[in-house]
């Protein structure tokens, strides 16, 4: 008797309060949005094969990169790991029956869907050509559907806040008896830190977008220089959310990596306390770095220096984690399987993306790279590559937990190879392009950049192929996969103590925290 079939009926799914079902619905939704956003990206890449862009008109190009950004950021990456896997795994990992407020959890899902629909309506009804950042004064004066898109994103933000509140209350009050804070699984810590950002940063984004929507609808001119408004002020408010938002995307990914590394190495994570410290540190310092997006937008040299140094501080926290993961693996007997392979890609992308992050936090260099493909390559490496590989690692790692079936390991490795290689081939040329002066968001470019663009597009096709293959074999495995057993990875973590797939009430008998989530004895 698993949560998939008990109780039966479509209505029991759509109105479910079971965190696992809500998580599965999120998972399906974000996968659809990943495909949609990926399709936009693929059209962009294909149109960039030729310098004069024969595939789409320049204005359509503007809309496509905007739609790609909006869909990927707000409909895929923000909800991907926290809302899908956070919902499914958080209660299981702390031995709870459900999240603290199951009904609010369901409301949160449907609010997300409603917001997503409003966004999609905006994309269909005229589209948006502002870039995902909605920079004023262009966003408040463009004839495209800014108001509708901004309201849609605002609504998804409400859903984010509700999810954050729910997770915080869950971690505070729903832990199984005997589970102390210092024993929390690292994924739970990551989700907790993410929730803090969701709750504190999202309202500021909501405000910024409401102001843009109102300004666009009624010409208030709040950020319009003609009426005395200051466009840079909008950038401050926008990035106050949107910089912490990249940690909403990456912190849960780091949590997944911590779990997978520990399970695959069959030993407890090295430097548990340091990882927790770094997780909370990133969440808090992440609030103080937003200014590095505006080094060239009119900021005093002093402010630039302060924001630069604070931004580099994040690299220290991140490095702590990378060293902790590698120390966990070092000397462990690692069982190689698809999840840990994705983690290897994650660490590679994260280290290189992170180092380029330190580089762009250096103001003198940033002036050269600002608004070029270098920045695009940087944030795709660290934020998109990081989130997506961690998401795929989670998808494979918890697939047997969720379905009770095992996917084909051969196909898993092939898919992982295609995705990893595709990603690196897509974005490495973009570092070179940006450094050579290729500005982002241009539909056209000088002919001598063509070969790098072609290489990038080939990589994008490989990446897309890898993702499609992955989805196909995973869906096939739901039906035809071999039974996985309750704990195929031989993990000590709490979620694997319930049957796979779990029953509606999560644990067959009342769970007891009699040994830790990373208690592998001396096996390592």
């Amino acid at each position, binding site marked *: 008797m698993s949560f998939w079939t008990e109780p039966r009926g479509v209505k029991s799914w759509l109105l479910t309060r079971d965190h696992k079902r809500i998580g599965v619905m999120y998972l399906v939704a974000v996968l659809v949005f990943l495909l949609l956003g990926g399709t936009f990206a693929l059209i962009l890449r294909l149109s960039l094969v030729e310098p004069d862009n024969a595939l789409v008109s320049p204005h359509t190009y503007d809309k496509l990169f905007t739609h790609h950004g909006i869909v990927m950021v707000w409909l895929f990456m923000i909800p991907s790991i926290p809302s899908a896997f956070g919902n499914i795994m958080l209660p299981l990992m702390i031995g709870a029956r459900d999240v603290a407020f199951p009904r609010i959890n369901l409301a949160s899902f449907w609010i997300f869907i409603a917001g997503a629909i409003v966004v999609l309506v905006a994309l269909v009804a005229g589209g948006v050509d502002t870039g995902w950042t909605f920079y004023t004064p262009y966003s408040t004066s463009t004839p495209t559907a800014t108001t509708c898109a901004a309201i849609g994103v605002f609504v998804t933000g409400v859903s984010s806040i509700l999810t954050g509140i729910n997770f*915080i209350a869950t971690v505070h009050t729903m832990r199984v008896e005997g589970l102390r804070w210092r024993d929390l699984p690292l994924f739970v810590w990551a989700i907790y830190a993410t929730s803090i950002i969701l709750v504190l940063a999202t309202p500021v984004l909501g405000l910024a977008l409401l102001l843009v929507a109102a300004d666009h609808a009624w010409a208030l001119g709040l950020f319009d220089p003609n009426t005395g408004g200051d466009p840079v002020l909008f950038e401050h408010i926008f990035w106050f959310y949107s910089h912490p938002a990249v940690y909403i995307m990456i912190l849960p990914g780091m949590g997944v990596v911590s779990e997978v590394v520990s399970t695959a190495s069959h030993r407890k994570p090295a430097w548990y306390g340091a990882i927790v410290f770094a997780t909370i540190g990133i969440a808090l310092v992440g609030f103080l770095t937003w200014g590095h997006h505006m080094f060239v937008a009119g900021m005093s040299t002093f402010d630039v220096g302060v924001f630069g140094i604070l931004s580099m501080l994040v690299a220290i926290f991140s490095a702590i984690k990378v060293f902790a993961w590698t120390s966990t693996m070092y000397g462990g007997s690692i069982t190689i399987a698809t999840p840990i392979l994705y983690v290897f890609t994650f660490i590679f992308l994260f280290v290189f993306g992170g180092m380029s992050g330190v580089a762009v936090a250096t103001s003198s260099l940033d002036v050269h790279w600002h608004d070029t493909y270098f920045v695009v390559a940087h944030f795709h490496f660290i934020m998109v590559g990081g989130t997506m590989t961690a998401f795929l690692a989670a998808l494979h790692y918890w697939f047997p937990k969720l379905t009770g079936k095992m996917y084909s390991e051969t196909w898993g490795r092939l898919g992982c190879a295609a995705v990893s290689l595709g990603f690196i081939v897509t974005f490495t040329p973009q570092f070179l392009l940006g450094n050579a002066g290729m500005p982002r968001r241009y539909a056209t470019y000088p002919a001598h950049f063509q070969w790098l663009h072609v290489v990038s597009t080939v990589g994008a096709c490989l990446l897309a192929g890898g993702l499609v293959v992955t989805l196909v074999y995973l869906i096939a495995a739901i039906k035809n996969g071999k039974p996985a057993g309750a704990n195929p990875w031989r993990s000590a973590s709490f979620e694997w103590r319930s049957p796979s797939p779990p029953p509606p009430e999560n644990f067959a008998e009342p769970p007891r925290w009699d040994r830790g989530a990373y208690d592998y004895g001396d096996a390592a």
Partner: protein
Amino acid sequence: MTSLAQVRRFRVAVWTVIASEALLFSGLFGLYWSYRDEYPRAFDAGVRIDIAWMGGVNTFVLLTSSFAIAWAVHAMRHARTRVVARCLVAVLLLGGVFLALKIAEWTVHISEGVVPGGAYYTGPWNGRGSSLFFTLYYFMTGLHALHVIAGMVLIAWVALRVRARTLTGDDPHALELVALYWHFVDAIWVFLWPMFYLMRA
């Protein structure tokens, strides 16, 4: 009867909501202070155009309502249900007075042509930055009024539960948490009051 676990859950949730709302308003405070720094004359003129006595009375009204709901919480702990009910009705009435005065002030402004968006007319001094002052005025007082309405809905719900005797001195937590939220809404106004009615340049 609310279990202890539920009480803890709701308490964490309400404090988290308050933190989230505080950040929501902080974005607007940031906008206000940035623009005030840039346009001191326009903001001075704006504060003079706003109707000081209405702002003052509204502050008194909200502070009194906060006192009344604190009294309700106190009375509830001593199981004096009738006092609780009277206090809650008083809070609702005071909330209504606040909203009525707010709407009256907006109406006066709009009849004088001081409107959000479009062409601003701010009377004796209509310089650069005055439209920013009034956009923020409408946005911030409007957002705050929405919070007052939300708080009143919650208080009405609590009052109905007191009447139905499902909220008693043994289980006063819903009242305490709603009171906490109401105090927060009140505290936001305590910041808005000087910003829009008192602080002349």
